[in-house]
Protein backbone atom coordinates (compact mmCIF):
# COMPACT_ATOMS: atom_id res chain seq x y z
CA UNK A 1 0.00 0.00 0.00
CA UNK A 2 2.64 2.52 1.10
CA UNK A 3 4.96 1.27 -1.64
CA UNK A 4 2.24 1.86 -4.17
CA UNK A 5 1.45 5.38 -2.92
CA UNK A 6 5.15 6.26 -2.98
CA UNK A 7 5.58 4.46 -6.33
CA UNK A 8 8.28 2.14 -4.89
CA UNK A 9 10.49 5.18 -4.35
CA UNK A 10 11.06 4.77 -0.63
CA UNK A 11 13.01 7.42 1.33
CA UNK A 12 15.88 4.91 1.80
CA UNK A 13 17.18 6.78 4.84
CA UNK A 14 15.77 6.75 8.33
CA UNK A 15 16.33 10.47 8.89
CA UNK A 16 14.75 11.34 5.57
CA UNK A 17 11.73 9.19 6.42
CA UNK A 18 11.42 10.93 9.79
CA UNK A 19 11.75 14.39 8.21
CA UNK A 20 9.14 13.63 5.56
CA UNK A 21 6.75 12.20 8.14
CA UNK A 22 7.23 15.28 10.31
CA UNK A 23 6.49 17.55 7.34
CA UNK A 24 3.39 15.55 6.41
CA UNK A 25 2.00 15.55 9.96
CA UNK A 26 2.97 19.19 10.50
CA UNK A 27 1.18 20.33 7.36
CA UNK A 28 -1.83 18.03 7.78
CA UNK A 29 -2.54 19.37 11.28
CA UNK A 30 -1.06 22.84 10.85
CA UNK A 31 -4.29 24.70 11.73
CA UNK A 32 -4.36 22.91 15.11
CA UNK A 33 -0.65 22.52 15.84
CA UNK A 34 0.32 26.08 14.90
CA UNK A 35 -2.73 28.29 15.43
CA UNK A 36 -2.72 31.83 14.10
CA UNK A 37 -3.16 33.54 10.75
CA UNK A 38 0.54 33.93 10.05
CA UNK A 39 1.53 30.32 10.67
CA UNK A 40 -1.40 29.06 8.60
CA UNK A 41 -0.29 31.36 5.79
CA UNK A 42 3.25 29.97 6.04
CA UNK A 43 1.93 26.39 5.98
CA UNK A 44 -0.14 27.07 2.85
CA UNK A 45 2.81 28.71 1.13
CA UNK A 46 4.96 25.70 2.01
CA UNK A 47 2.40 23.41 0.32
CA UNK A 48 2.36 25.55 -2.82
CA UNK A 49 6.14 25.85 -3.02
CA UNK A 50 6.63 22.11 -2.47
CA UNK A 51 4.55 21.53 -5.62
CA UNK A 52 6.37 24.26 -7.52
CA UNK A 53 9.84 23.01 -6.55
CA UNK A 54 8.91 19.36 -7.17
CA UNK A 55 7.66 20.18 -10.67
CA UNK A 56 10.90 22.06 -11.34
CA UNK A 57 12.85 19.00 -10.21
CA UNK A 58 11.10 16.98 -12.92
CA UNK A 59 12.79 19.31 -15.41
CA UNK A 60 16.13 20.06 -13.78
CA UNK A 61 16.87 16.95 -11.75
CA UNK A 62 15.23 14.21 -13.79
CA UNK A 63 15.38 15.40 -17.41
CA UNK A 64 18.40 17.69 -17.19
CA UNK A 65 16.55 20.67 -18.66
CA UNK A 66 17.65 24.06 -17.33
CA UNK A 67 14.66 26.41 -17.63
CA UNK A 68 14.18 29.86 -16.15
CA UNK A 69 10.56 30.04 -17.28
CA UNK A 70 9.12 28.03 -14.44
CA UNK A 71 7.75 31.01 -12.54
CA UNK A 72 6.10 32.11 -15.78
CA UNK A 73 3.85 29.04 -15.61
CA UNK A 74 3.31 29.63 -11.90
CA UNK A 75 2.21 33.18 -12.77
CA UNK A 76 -0.04 32.02 -15.59
CA UNK A 77 -1.89 29.74 -13.17
CA UNK A 78 -2.25 32.47 -10.55
CA UNK A 79 -3.33 35.12 -13.05
CA UNK A 80 -5.72 32.68 -14.73
CA UNK A 81 -7.68 32.28 -11.50
CA UNK A 82 -7.21 35.92 -10.47
CA UNK A 83 -8.44 37.38 -13.77
CA UNK A 84 -11.39 34.96 -13.94
CA UNK A 85 -12.46 35.79 -10.37
CA UNK A 86 -12.08 39.53 -11.05
CA UNK A 87 -14.04 39.48 -14.28
CA UNK A 88 -16.61 36.78 -13.71
CA UNK A 89 -17.22 37.29 -10.02
CA UNK A 90 -16.42 35.04 -7.07
CA UNK A 91 -17.82 31.65 -8.08
CA UNK A 92 -16.51 28.13 -8.64
CA UNK A 93 -17.29 28.35 -12.35
CA UNK A 94 -14.89 31.30 -12.59
CA UNK A 95 -12.22 29.28 -10.73
CA UNK A 96 -12.71 26.39 -13.15
CA UNK A 97 -12.56 28.61 -16.22
CA UNK A 98 -9.46 30.35 -14.87
CA UNK A 99 -7.65 27.05 -14.24
CA UNK A 100 -8.57 25.57 -17.63
CA UNK A 101 -7.55 28.74 -19.47
CA UNK A 102 -4.30 28.91 -17.51
CA UNK A 103 -3.48 25.24 -18.22
CA UNK A 104 -4.23 25.66 -21.92
CA UNK A 105 -1.99 28.70 -22.24
CA UNK A 106 0.78 27.12 -20.16
CA UNK A 107 0.80 23.87 -22.12
CA UNK A 108 0.68 25.70 -25.45
CA UNK A 109 3.67 27.83 -24.41
CA UNK A 110 5.57 24.78 -23.12
CA UNK A 111 5.03 22.91 -26.39
CA UNK A 112 6.07 25.94 -28.39
CA UNK A 113 9.23 26.56 -26.38
CA UNK A 114 9.96 22.83 -26.38
CA UNK A 115 9.60 22.15 -30.08
CA UNK A 116 11.46 25.27 -31.10
CA UNK A 117 14.35 25.16 -28.72
CA UNK A 118 14.80 21.83 -26.93
CA UNK A 119 17.08 20.68 -29.73
CA UNK A 120 19.46 23.47 -28.77
CA UNK A 121 22.30 23.12 -26.30
CA UNK A 122 21.34 23.42 -22.64
CA UNK A 123 22.73 26.93 -22.24
CA UNK A 124 20.93 28.32 -25.30
CA UNK A 125 17.68 26.77 -24.18
CA UNK A 126 18.14 28.37 -20.74
CA UNK A 127 18.67 31.76 -22.41
CA UNK A 128 15.51 31.41 -24.49
CA UNK A 129 13.42 30.53 -21.44
CA UNK A 130 14.91 33.56 -19.68
CA UNK A 131 13.90 35.78 -22.60
CA UNK A 132 10.34 34.42 -22.78
CA UNK A 133 9.90 34.69 -19.01
CA UNK A 134 11.13 38.30 -19.06
CA UNK A 135 8.71 39.14 -21.85
CA UNK A 136 5.78 37.69 -19.89
CA UNK A 137 6.84 39.54 -16.72
CA UNK A 138 6.91 42.84 -18.64
CA UNK A 139 3.61 42.02 -20.31
CA UNK A 140 1.97 41.35 -16.93
CA UNK A 141 3.21 44.69 -15.55
CA UNK A 142 2.20 46.67 -18.64
CA UNK A 143 -1.21 45.24 -19.52
CA UNK A 144 -2.72 46.88 -16.47
CA UNK A 145 -6.24 46.81 -17.90
CA UNK A 146 -6.22 43.02 -17.62
CA UNK A 147 -3.59 42.21 -15.01
CA UNK A 148 -3.75 45.24 -12.74
CA UNK A 149 -0.17 46.18 -13.66
CA UNK A 150 2.47 46.34 -10.92
CA UNK A 151 -0.16 46.37 -8.19
CA UNK A 152 -1.74 43.18 -9.43
CA UNK A 153 -5.28 42.11 -8.75
CA UNK A 154 -7.29 41.91 -5.55
CA UNK A 155 -10.39 39.79 -5.82
CA UNK A 156 -12.97 38.00 -3.75
CA UNK A 157 -12.77 34.23 -3.33
CA UNK A 158 -15.76 31.93 -3.71
CA UNK A 159 -18.05 32.16 -0.66
CA UNK A 160 -16.96 28.85 0.87
CA UNK A 161 -13.28 29.91 1.00
CA UNK A 162 -13.79 33.23 2.80
CA UNK A 163 -12.85 33.68 6.46
CA UNK A 164 -16.39 34.93 7.07
CA UNK A 165 -17.86 31.59 5.95
CA UNK A 166 -18.77 29.72 9.15
CA UNK A 167 -21.05 26.76 8.51
CA UNK A 168 -20.64 25.63 12.12
CA UNK A 169 -18.63 26.55 15.17
CA UNK A 170 -14.86 26.14 14.95
CA UNK A 171 -14.89 25.74 11.17
CA UNK A 172 -14.22 28.59 8.75
CA UNK A 173 -13.82 29.08 5.03
CA UNK A 174 -10.15 29.74 5.72
CA UNK A 175 -9.77 26.23 7.12
CA UNK A 176 -11.54 24.75 4.09
CA UNK A 177 -9.25 26.80 1.85
CA UNK A 178 -6.17 25.48 3.66
CA UNK A 179 -7.24 21.86 3.28
CA UNK A 180 -8.03 22.44 -0.40
CA UNK A 181 -4.45 23.67 -0.85
CA UNK A 182 -3.02 20.85 1.30
CA UNK A 183 -4.79 17.93 -0.38
CA UNK A 184 -4.35 19.17 -3.94
CA UNK A 185 -0.64 19.75 -3.22
CA UNK A 186 -0.28 16.28 -1.71
CA UNK A 187 -1.99 14.69 -4.71
CA UNK A 188 0.19 16.61 -7.16
CA UNK A 189 3.44 15.66 -5.41
CA UNK A 190 2.42 11.98 -5.30
CA UNK A 191 1.47 12.17 -8.99
CA UNK A 192 4.90 13.62 -9.83
CA UNK A 193 6.53 10.89 -7.74
CA UNK A 194 4.62 8.31 -9.77
CA UNK A 195 5.60 9.91 -13.08
CA UNK A 196 9.33 9.91 -12.29
CA UNK A 197 9.10 6.25 -11.28
CA UNK A 198 7.15 5.22 -14.38
CA UNK A 199 8.59 3.81 -17.62
CA UNK A 200 8.27 7.34 -19.00
CA UNK A 201 10.26 8.72 -16.05
CA UNK A 202 13.00 6.16 -16.64
CA UNK A 203 13.40 7.51 -20.18
CA UNK A 204 13.72 11.05 -18.79
CA UNK A 205 16.61 9.93 -16.60
CA UNK A 206 18.22 8.17 -19.55
CA UNK A 207 18.02 11.44 -21.50
CA UNK A 208 19.56 13.32 -18.58
CA UNK A 209 22.40 10.80 -18.41
CA UNK A 210 23.18 10.52 -22.11
CA UNK A 211 20.82 12.03 -24.70
CA UNK A 212 22.95 10.74 -27.57
CA UNK A 213 22.65 7.15 -26.40
CA UNK A 214 18.96 7.54 -25.58
CA UNK A 215 18.42 8.46 -29.25
CA UNK A 216 20.64 5.59 -30.38
CA UNK A 217 18.58 2.99 -28.52
CA UNK A 218 15.37 4.30 -30.05
CA UNK A 219 13.95 7.15 -27.95
CA UNK A 220 13.03 10.43 -29.67
CA UNK A 221 14.45 12.72 -27.01
CA UNK A 222 12.67 15.85 -28.22
CA UNK A 223 9.27 14.21 -27.64
CA UNK A 224 10.14 13.17 -24.10
CA UNK A 225 11.69 16.51 -23.25
CA UNK A 226 8.67 18.38 -24.59
CA UNK A 227 6.28 16.13 -22.68
CA UNK A 228 8.27 16.58 -19.48
CA UNK A 229 8.17 20.37 -20.03
CA UNK A 230 4.39 20.22 -20.47
CA UNK A 231 3.87 18.18 -17.30
CA UNK A 232 6.12 20.50 -15.30
CA UNK A 233 4.39 23.56 -16.76
CA UNK A 234 0.93 22.20 -16.01
CA UNK A 235 1.90 21.36 -12.43
CA UNK A 236 3.41 24.80 -11.89
CA UNK A 237 0.22 26.33 -13.29
CA UNK A 238 -1.85 24.39 -10.75
CA UNK A 239 0.49 25.54 -7.98
CA UNK A 240 -0.09 29.12 -9.14
CA UNK A 241 -3.85 28.58 -9.13
CA UNK A 242 -3.62 27.27 -5.55
CA UNK A 243 -1.68 30.34 -4.46
CA UNK A 244 -4.31 32.60 -6.08
CA UNK A 245 -7.06 30.70 -4.29
CA UNK A 246 -5.22 31.04 -1.01
CA UNK A 247 -4.11 34.68 -1.02
CA UNK A 248 -6.96 36.47 -2.88
CA UNK A 249 -4.28 38.76 -4.26
CA UNK A 250 -2.04 38.19 -7.31
CA UNK A 251 0.75 40.47 -8.48
CA UNK A 252 3.96 40.17 -10.54
CA UNK A 253 6.04 40.22 -7.34
CA UNK A 254 4.27 37.28 -5.75
CA UNK A 255 4.08 35.01 -8.82
CA UNK A 256 6.33 36.05 -11.72
CA UNK A 257 9.43 37.67 -10.26
CA UNK A 258 12.90 36.27 -10.75
CA UNK A 259 13.35 36.21 -6.98
CA UNK A 260 10.88 33.36 -6.95
CA UNK A 261 12.74 31.62 -9.79
CA UNK A 262 15.95 31.81 -7.73
CA UNK A 263 14.06 30.50 -4.69
CA UNK A 264 12.81 27.47 -6.62
CA UNK A 265 16.29 26.78 -7.94
CA UNK A 266 17.69 26.92 -4.40
CA UNK A 267 14.96 24.67 -3.02
CA UNK A 268 15.75 21.99 -5.60
CA UNK A 269 19.54 22.27 -5.35
CA UNK A 270 19.65 22.40 -1.53
CA UNK A 271 17.14 19.59 -1.14
CA UNK A 272 18.78 17.39 -3.75
CA UNK A 273 18.20 17.32 -7.50
CA UNK A 274 16.54 14.33 -9.09
CA UNK A 275 15.15 12.94 -5.85
CA UNK A 276 11.63 14.46 -5.67
CA UNK A 277 11.92 14.35 -1.86
CA UNK A 278 14.72 16.90 -2.03
CA UNK A 279 12.52 19.76 -3.28
CA UNK A 280 10.02 18.94 -0.50
CA UNK A 281 12.73 19.40 2.16
CA UNK A 282 14.19 22.40 0.32
CA UNK A 283 10.82 24.17 0.04
CA UNK A 284 10.04 23.67 3.73
CA UNK A 285 13.45 25.00 4.82
CA UNK A 286 13.43 27.99 2.50
CA UNK A 287 9.87 29.15 3.19
CA UNK A 288 10.45 28.76 6.96
CA UNK A 289 13.71 30.71 6.72
CA UNK A 290 12.10 33.51 4.72
CA UNK A 291 9.33 33.89 7.27
CA UNK A 292 11.03 33.28 10.61
CA UNK A 293 14.77 33.88 10.22
CA UNK A 294 14.37 37.63 10.64
CA UNK A 295 12.78 37.16 14.05
CA UNK A 296 15.54 34.75 15.09
CA UNK A 297 18.73 36.45 13.90
CA UNK A 298 17.70 40.06 13.32
CA UNK A 299 17.87 42.43 10.38
CA UNK A 300 20.84 40.79 8.70
CA UNK A 301 18.85 37.59 8.15
CA UNK A 302 19.37 37.66 4.38
CA UNK A 303 23.12 37.64 4.91
CA UNK A 304 22.88 34.63 7.23
CA UNK A 305 20.54 32.90 4.77
CA UNK A 306 23.15 33.43 2.05
CA UNK A 307 25.93 32.03 4.24
CA UNK A 308 23.78 29.02 5.10
CA UNK A 309 23.18 28.32 1.39
CA UNK A 310 26.84 28.53 0.49
CA UNK A 311 27.75 26.14 3.31
CA UNK A 312 24.93 23.83 2.32
CA UNK A 313 25.93 23.62 -1.34
CA UNK A 314 29.60 23.31 -0.37
CA UNK A 315 29.16 20.49 2.10
CA UNK A 316 26.22 18.69 0.46
CA UNK A 317 26.84 18.92 -3.28
CA UNK A 318 24.20 16.24 -3.87
CA UNK A 319 21.75 18.08 -1.65
CA UNK A 320 20.36 17.15 1.73
CA UNK A 321 18.62 14.05 0.40
CA UNK A 322 21.72 12.92 -1.46
CA UNK A 323 23.71 13.28 1.77
CA UNK A 324 21.15 11.43 3.88
CA UNK A 325 20.95 8.54 1.45
CA UNK A 326 24.69 8.09 1.15
CA UNK A 327 25.29 5.87 4.13
Amino acid at each position, binding site marked *: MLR*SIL*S*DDMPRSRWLAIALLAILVGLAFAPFLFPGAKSLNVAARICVFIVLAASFDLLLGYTGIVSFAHTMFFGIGAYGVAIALTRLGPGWAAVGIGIVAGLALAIALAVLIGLFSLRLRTIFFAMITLAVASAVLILASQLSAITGGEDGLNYRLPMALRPSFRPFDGFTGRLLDYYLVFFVSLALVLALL*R*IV*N*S*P*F*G*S*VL*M*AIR*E*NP*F*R*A*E*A*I*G*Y*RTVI*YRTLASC*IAAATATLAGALLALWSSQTSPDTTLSFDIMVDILLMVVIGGMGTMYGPVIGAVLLVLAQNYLQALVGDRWLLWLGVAFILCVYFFPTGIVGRLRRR
Partner: protein
Amino acid sequence: MRGRRTTDMLETQSLTIRFGGHAAVDGVTCAFQPGTLTSIVGPNGAGKTTYFNLISGQLPATSGKVRLNGEDITGWPAPRRTRAGLGRAFQLTNLFPNLSALENVRLAVQVRSGHGMGRALDLFSRTTTHRELIDKAREHLAAVSLSDRADAIAATLPHGDQRKLEVAILLALEPDIFMFDEPTAGMSIDEVPTILDIIAAIKARSDKTILLVEHKMDVVRSLSDRIVVLHQGRLVADGKPAAVINSDIVREAYLGGAADV
Protein backbone atom coordinates in the same frame (compact mmCIF):
# COMPACT_ATOMS: atom_id res chain seq x y z
CA MET B 1 6.54 -8.16 -36.86
CA ARG B 2 9.02 -6.85 -39.39
CA GLY B 3 8.95 -8.43 -42.82
CA ARG B 4 12.11 -10.38 -43.51
CA ARG B 5 13.27 -10.82 -47.07
CA THR B 6 15.72 -13.21 -48.53
CA THR B 7 17.24 -10.34 -50.50
CA ASP B 8 19.79 -7.88 -49.17
CA MET B 9 18.68 -6.65 -45.81
CA LEU B 10 20.87 -3.59 -45.67
CA GLU B 11 22.54 -1.75 -48.51
CA THR B 12 24.27 1.53 -49.12
CA GLN B 13 24.33 3.18 -52.55
CA SER B 14 27.10 5.67 -53.34
CA LEU B 15 26.96 6.71 -49.69
CA THR B 16 28.99 9.87 -49.15
CA ILE B 17 29.62 12.40 -46.43
CA ARG B 18 31.80 15.46 -46.78
CA PHE B 19 33.21 17.52 -43.96
CA GLY B 20 34.14 20.72 -45.74
CA GLY B 21 35.99 19.56 -48.83
CA HIS B 22 37.07 16.23 -47.31
CA ALA B 23 35.00 13.16 -48.15
CA ALA B 24 35.24 10.97 -45.05
CA VAL B 25 33.08 8.31 -46.71
CA ASP B 26 33.21 8.50 -50.46
CA GLY B 27 30.65 6.77 -52.67
CA VAL B 28 30.47 3.46 -50.81
CA THR B 29 28.09 0.98 -52.44
CA CYS B 30 27.75 -2.25 -50.53
CA ALA B 31 25.04 -4.74 -49.58
CA PHE B 32 24.85 -6.93 -46.48
CA GLN B 33 22.95 -10.21 -46.40
CA PRO B 34 21.23 -11.97 -43.50
CA GLY B 35 23.23 -14.80 -42.00
CA THR B 36 26.48 -13.14 -42.96
CA LEU B 37 29.13 -11.58 -40.78
CA THR B 38 30.92 -8.86 -42.68
CA SER B 39 34.02 -7.28 -41.22
CA ILE B 40 34.87 -3.74 -42.20
CA VAL B 41 38.58 -3.13 -41.93
CA GLY B 42 40.96 -0.39 -42.90
CA PRO B 43 43.65 1.82 -41.40
CA ASN B 44 42.84 4.52 -38.85
CA GLY B 45 40.92 7.35 -40.46
CA ALA B 46 39.65 5.12 -43.27
CA GLY B 47 36.06 6.10 -42.46
CA LYS B 48 34.84 2.88 -40.82
CA THR B 49 33.13 4.48 -37.83
CA THR B 50 31.83 7.32 -40.01
CA TYR B 51 30.33 4.71 -42.35
CA PHE B 52 28.63 3.14 -39.31
CA ASN B 53 27.35 6.56 -38.24
CA LEU B 54 25.79 7.08 -41.67
CA ILE B 55 24.08 3.69 -41.56
CA SER B 56 22.72 4.03 -38.01
CA GLY B 57 21.77 7.68 -38.48
CA GLN B 58 24.16 9.51 -36.14
CA LEU B 59 25.38 11.54 -39.14
CA PRO B 60 23.39 12.77 -42.16
CA ALA B 61 24.63 11.62 -45.56
CA THR B 62 25.77 14.31 -48.00
CA SER B 63 24.62 12.12 -50.88
CA GLY B 64 23.78 8.50 -51.61
CA LYS B 65 21.24 6.24 -49.96
CA VAL B 66 20.84 3.74 -47.15
CA ARG B 67 18.22 1.05 -47.72
CA LEU B 68 16.77 -1.32 -45.18
CA ASN B 69 14.75 -4.22 -46.61
CA GLY B 70 14.46 -2.25 -49.82
CA GLU B 71 13.10 0.86 -48.10
CA ASP B 72 15.00 4.13 -48.35
CA ILE B 73 15.84 5.13 -44.77
CA THR B 74 18.41 7.83 -45.59
CA GLY B 75 16.23 10.56 -44.11
CA TRP B 76 15.21 8.66 -40.98
CA PRO B 77 16.45 9.87 -37.59
CA ALA B 78 18.51 7.43 -35.51
CA PRO B 79 15.72 6.37 -33.09
CA ARG B 80 13.47 5.28 -35.95
CA ARG B 81 16.24 3.24 -37.53
CA THR B 82 16.88 1.52 -34.21
CA ARG B 83 13.21 0.67 -33.81
CA ALA B 84 13.23 -0.67 -37.38
CA GLY B 85 15.87 -3.23 -36.43
CA LEU B 86 19.26 -1.56 -36.78
CA GLY B 87 21.20 -2.09 -33.55
CA ARG B 88 24.49 -0.42 -32.86
CA ALA B 89 27.18 -0.82 -30.22
CA PHE B 90 29.62 2.03 -29.90
CA GLN B 91 33.38 2.10 -30.05
CA LEU B 92 33.81 4.57 -27.23
CA THR B 93 31.84 3.37 -24.25
CA ASN B 94 28.55 5.20 -24.37
CA LEU B 95 26.40 4.24 -21.41
CA PHE B 96 24.01 5.92 -18.98
CA PRO B 97 26.75 6.52 -16.40
CA ASN B 98 24.77 7.14 -13.18
CA LEU B 99 22.21 4.41 -13.71
CA SER B 100 22.67 0.78 -12.69
CA ALA B 101 23.88 -1.81 -15.16
CA LEU B 102 20.44 -3.43 -15.01
CA GLU B 103 18.68 -0.13 -15.73
CA ASN B 104 21.00 0.51 -18.70
CA VAL B 105 19.82 -2.74 -20.25
CA ARG B 106 16.19 -2.43 -19.10
CA LEU B 107 15.88 0.89 -20.97
CA ALA B 108 16.84 -0.90 -24.17
CA VAL B 109 14.37 -3.73 -23.44
CA GLN B 110 11.69 -1.11 -22.84
CA VAL B 111 12.08 0.31 -26.36
CA ARG B 112 11.23 -3.09 -27.80
CA SER B 113 8.21 -3.71 -25.57
CA GLY B 114 4.73 -3.27 -26.96
CA HIS B 115 4.07 -1.21 -30.05
CA GLY B 116 5.58 2.00 -31.36
CA MET B 117 7.21 3.65 -28.38
CA GLY B 118 6.38 0.57 -26.33
CA ARG B 119 5.79 1.13 -22.67
CA ALA B 120 7.94 4.23 -22.72
CA LEU B 121 4.98 6.61 -22.90
CA ASP B 122 3.36 4.96 -19.90
CA LEU B 123 3.32 7.71 -17.26
CA PHE B 124 1.32 6.21 -14.45
CA SER B 125 2.46 2.65 -13.89
CA ARG B 126 5.44 1.80 -11.75
CA THR B 127 8.57 0.68 -13.57
CA THR B 128 9.08 -1.90 -10.84
CA THR B 129 5.78 -3.62 -11.67
CA HIS B 130 6.88 -4.51 -15.21
CA ARG B 131 8.68 -7.67 -14.13
CA GLU B 132 8.88 -9.02 -17.69
CA LEU B 133 11.12 -6.12 -18.77
CA ILE B 134 13.36 -6.51 -15.73
CA ASP B 135 13.64 -10.28 -16.17
CA LYS B 136 14.55 -9.89 -19.81
CA ALA B 137 17.19 -7.29 -18.92
CA ARG B 138 18.65 -9.76 -16.41
CA GLU B 139 18.84 -12.44 -19.13
CA HIS B 140 20.83 -10.12 -21.37
CA LEU B 141 23.15 -9.23 -18.49
CA ALA B 142 23.65 -12.94 -17.87
CA ALA B 143 24.53 -13.43 -21.54
CA VAL B 144 27.53 -11.14 -21.13
CA SER B 145 28.31 -12.66 -17.70
CA LEU B 146 27.47 -9.48 -15.79
CA SER B 147 24.71 -10.93 -13.60
CA ASP B 148 26.57 -10.25 -10.39
CA ARG B 149 27.06 -6.58 -11.32
CA ALA B 150 23.39 -5.84 -12.09
CA ASP B 151 23.02 -3.25 -9.33
CA ALA B 152 26.39 -1.58 -9.85
CA ILE B 153 26.34 1.97 -11.20
CA ALA B 154 27.56 1.82 -14.79
CA ALA B 155 30.25 4.48 -14.33
CA THR B 156 31.86 2.49 -11.50
CA LEU B 157 32.31 -0.68 -13.58
CA PRO B 158 35.80 -1.54 -14.84
CA HIS B 159 36.40 -0.83 -18.52
CA GLY B 160 36.00 -4.44 -19.61
CA ASP B 161 32.64 -4.73 -17.86
CA GLN B 162 31.50 -1.46 -19.46
CA ARG B 163 32.30 -2.96 -22.87
CA LYS B 164 30.25 -6.03 -21.96
CA LEU B 165 27.39 -3.81 -20.82
CA GLU B 166 27.55 -2.00 -24.15
CA VAL B 167 27.05 -5.36 -25.88
CA ALA B 168 24.22 -6.31 -23.48
CA ILE B 169 22.38 -3.12 -24.48
CA LEU B 170 22.75 -4.08 -28.13
CA LEU B 171 21.42 -7.58 -27.42
CA ALA B 172 18.46 -6.06 -25.56
CA LEU B 173 17.47 -4.09 -28.66
CA GLU B 174 16.94 -7.47 -30.39
CA PRO B 175 17.95 -6.04 -33.76
CA ASP B 176 17.96 -7.77 -37.15
CA ILE B 177 21.21 -6.06 -37.96
CA PHE B 178 24.00 -5.96 -35.39
CA MET B 179 26.66 -3.32 -35.78
CA PHE B 180 29.72 -3.84 -33.58
CA ASP B 181 32.30 -1.08 -33.58
CA GLU B 182 35.52 -2.55 -32.18
CA PRO B 183 33.70 -4.47 -29.45
CA THR B 184 36.91 -5.79 -27.90
CA ALA B 185 38.84 -2.50 -27.90
CA GLY B 186 40.69 -1.99 -24.63
CA MET B 187 39.60 -5.33 -23.19
CA SER B 188 42.02 -7.61 -21.42
CA ILE B 189 42.94 -10.82 -23.25
CA ASP B 190 40.88 -13.07 -20.97
CA GLU B 191 37.73 -10.94 -21.46
CA VAL B 192 37.83 -10.96 -25.26
CA PRO B 193 36.45 -14.52 -25.67
CA THR B 194 33.20 -13.58 -23.86
CA ILE B 195 32.42 -10.99 -26.52
CA LEU B 196 33.57 -13.17 -29.41
CA ASP B 197 31.42 -16.06 -28.15
CA ILE B 198 28.41 -13.74 -28.14
CA ILE B 199 29.07 -12.61 -31.69
CA ALA B 200 29.53 -16.25 -32.75
CA ALA B 201 26.23 -17.15 -31.05
CA ILE B 202 24.37 -14.41 -32.91
CA LYS B 203 25.94 -15.58 -36.13
CA ALA B 204 24.86 -19.16 -35.44
CA ARG B 205 21.23 -18.05 -35.46
CA SER B 206 21.83 -17.43 -39.21
CA ASP B 207 18.98 -14.97 -39.81
CA LYS B 208 20.91 -11.98 -38.49
CA THR B 209 23.09 -9.56 -40.39
CA ILE B 210 26.29 -8.68 -38.55
CA LEU B 211 28.65 -5.81 -39.33
CA LEU B 212 31.89 -5.73 -37.43
CA VAL B 213 34.57 -3.07 -37.32
CA GLU B 214 37.66 -4.66 -35.82
CA HIS B 215 41.40 -4.14 -35.81
CA LYS B 216 42.52 -7.50 -34.50
CA MET B 217 43.17 -9.46 -37.69
CA ASP B 218 43.01 -12.87 -36.01
CA VAL B 219 39.49 -12.04 -34.77
CA VAL B 220 38.46 -10.84 -38.22
CA ARG B 221 39.90 -13.91 -39.92
CA SER B 222 38.22 -16.44 -37.66
CA LEU B 223 34.74 -14.84 -37.52
CA SER B 224 34.15 -13.24 -40.90
CA ASP B 225 32.30 -14.62 -43.88
CA ARG B 226 33.36 -11.61 -45.85
CA ILE B 227 35.72 -8.68 -45.50
CA VAL B 228 35.20 -5.18 -46.85
CA VAL B 229 38.20 -2.84 -46.89
CA LEU B 230 37.82 0.92 -46.62
CA HIS B 231 40.72 3.21 -47.43
CA GLN B 232 40.46 7.00 -47.40
CA GLY B 233 36.69 6.72 -47.40
CA ARG B 234 36.49 4.45 -50.43
CA LEU B 235 35.65 0.78 -50.67
CA VAL B 236 38.84 -0.74 -52.06
CA ALA B 237 38.35 -4.47 -51.57
CA ASP B 238 35.48 -6.86 -50.89
CA GLY B 239 35.56 -10.64 -50.73
CA LYS B 240 36.32 -13.82 -48.83
CA PRO B 241 38.64 -13.33 -45.84
CA ALA B 242 41.58 -15.30 -47.13
CA ALA B 243 41.57 -13.59 -50.49
CA VAL B 244 41.14 -10.06 -49.14
CA ILE B 245 43.70 -10.29 -46.36
CA ASN B 246 46.39 -11.45 -48.77
CA SER B 247 45.57 -9.02 -51.55
CA ASP B 248 48.08 -6.37 -52.57
CA ILE B 249 45.61 -3.54 -52.15
CA VAL B 250 45.05 -4.38 -48.48
CA ARG B 251 48.74 -4.64 -47.74
CA GLU B 252 49.23 -1.30 -49.40
CA ALA B 253 46.32 0.34 -47.61
CA TYR B 254 47.51 -0.85 -44.22
CA LEU B 255 51.13 0.01 -44.79
CA GLY B 256 50.21 3.38 -46.29
CA GLY B 257 47.75 4.02 -43.45
CA ALA B 258 50.25 3.10 -40.76
CA ALA B 259 52.44 6.01 -41.81
CA ASP B 260 49.56 8.42 -41.08
CA VAL B 261 48.96 7.22 -37.54
